[in-house]
């Protein structure tokens, strides 16, 4: 049902909610965003996935007219973010990584001020604030100062404030970072409901599970570049149906083990630095026997071994090489591998 709804909306407007081409932002020497292309279909949830410092927030800030791109172009529903910023602002809601609400005001006052700024009358603003507080189960806390709000309540209020004008596009910058699992699930439900009512959502996250759970399409960003893009299933399929996790007893044999895996399974294997583990896609579990024999022949002793269905974690690890901090070369390679 949800999918039907989404399709209708996409057909109705027949345009991209977000279209970015070669967007660049440099801070001094640092190219925080280094030529990002994004296309977000109307009515979908789009996930931008990447580690800390990958440039996710900078991308969002440029799309939301908070930062001016140094090069490239971006448009929201066909409106250029640099040339028509005021129009773009009428179409978006932004919920930042740090709650963008007024600390010294109460929840109600916050929502009323934002509503009034968006052109609602006094009575309208009051009703809107009450309705949104109810919707986000904040009514009880409405009059309390924000100082006493928990992280989850703050995020909910922040999201409520972004929804006042019912914008067709909502940016959520790491909406669940720092939330406990229960609050996180509530936030997910809210995001799903938003899309049901016709919104497009672009969210950034470092949690692969979150992207897996919510996003229709995902762009993986690393070092300011999109290193992979596609539906969650496409990304998963690109690294095989299952994946192999393998740890060796002597870390000096790690490289050798990796080479053997690559030779026997004929795939690319990645070494995760922190876990001291090798991961590799595994299309055919039957090849396992060959691999074990090959490892025994080379006298490599195993510490652990498992075959798992791929999670986005593996996708991420494979695409960005060693999780964090990769060479340019491996980035390019994986990009090719993932384009489906």
């Amino acid at each position: 049902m949800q999918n039907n709804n989404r399709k209708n909306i996409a057909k109705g407007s027949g345009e991209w909610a977000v279209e970015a081409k070669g967007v660049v932002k440099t801070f001094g020497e640092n190219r925080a965003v280094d030529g990002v292309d994004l296309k977000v279909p109307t009515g979908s949830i789009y996930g931008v996935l990447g580690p800390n410092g990958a440039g996710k927030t900078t991308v969002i800030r440029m799309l939301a007219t908070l930062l001016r791109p140094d090069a490239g172009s971006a448009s929201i529903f066909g409106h250029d973010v640099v040339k028509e910023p005021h129009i773009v602002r009428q179409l978006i809601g932004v919920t930042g990584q740090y709650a963008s609400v007024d600390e010294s005001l109460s929840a109600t006052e916050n929502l009323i001020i934002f509503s009034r700024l968006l052109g609602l009358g006094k009575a309208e603003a009051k009703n809107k604030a009450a309705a949104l507080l109810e919707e986000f189960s904040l009514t009880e806390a409405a009059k309390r100062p924000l100082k006493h709000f928990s992280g989850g309540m703050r995020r909910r209020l922040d999201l409520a404030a972004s929804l006042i004008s019912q914008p067709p596009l909502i940016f959520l910058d790491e909406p669940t970072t720092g939330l406990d699992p229960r609050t996180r699930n509530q936030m997910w439900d809210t995001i799903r409901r938003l899309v049901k009512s016709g919104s497009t959502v672009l969210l950034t996250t470092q949690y692969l599970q979150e992207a897996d759970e919510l996003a229709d399409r995902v762009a993986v960003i690393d070092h300011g570049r999109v290193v992979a893009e596609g539906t969650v299933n496409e990304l998963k399929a690109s690294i095989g149906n299952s994946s192999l996790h393998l740890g060796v007893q002597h870390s000096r044999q790690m490289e050798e083990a990796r080479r053997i895996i690559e030779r026997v399974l004929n795939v690319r294997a990645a070494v995760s630095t922190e876990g001291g583990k090798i991961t590799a896609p595994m299309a055919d579990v039957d090849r396992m026997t060959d691999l074990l024999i090959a490892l025994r022949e080379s006298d490599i002793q195993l510490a652990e071994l498992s075959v798992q269905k791929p999670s986005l974690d593996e996708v991420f690890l494979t695409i960005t090489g060693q999780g964090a901090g990769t060479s340019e070369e491996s980035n390019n390679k994986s990009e090719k591998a993932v384009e489906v």
Partner: protein
Amino acid sequence: MDSMQIKPAHERKLRNKTSFRQSVKNSLIMAVRGLIKIRRTPEQLFDVTLQPIIFTLMFTYIFGGAISGDVQSYLPVIIPGILVQTVITTSIVTGVQLREDMDKGVFDRFKSLPIARIAPLAGALLADSIRYTIATVLTFTMGYIMGLRPEGGLGYVLIAALLVIGCAWAISWIFAFFGVIARTASSVQGISMIVLFPLTFLSNAFVPAETMPDWLQWFVKINPISHLVTAVRDLINQGSIGWDFTISLVGAAIIVAIFAPLTVRTYMRKA
């Protein structure tokens, strides 16, 4: 939320500009926000309540005898001087608070809303007019208690009050600019004091310009603060609106014309 459908982008009426009316409306709403904040933290009004009382008492009794012979005849000279000095010093706080405010996440939301770009700044500055009003009322009240009986009458005192508040508002754009370009709130305080201290003291606010050396008189006479002080003296002591009144207003207008767009542009560029 389930029941209501969100209007798709292409069905919306969109405008790429804010009208003048919307700008004024947005600024007023932002001013309301500023007032709520002041109401929540009344302790930030300490300076505007205590400074007029302490300074008026101090300066009048310290300088009164030396400059005008006795306290009574010094009051018409010193009250306008103290008034201008206090209210304009108060306007520094605008810049400092703006800096603190801008470091908070809520300014990101203001920037992402389809509102007039000037509104978050103009609103904050407008709300601060309440501070100038408090300082003005208290200074005049102190003066009255100490024996000042303005010859010009209440009407002219009111005009004088409005003139000072208006000029302080204009000058606060300068400090707002410092607030936008500075990296920390305390550096705003620092730069502002360095600018303001010579301006208020190298004027005729406390001492008649004629008693100063020639080279200093030259500066004191072109100092805009001197013109504002003279304008206030003319108003409350003689009930007359003179050349200094015009100069003060024109000066205030020029400051706003230069610093308001400059501040807004810098504020927009700094993300």
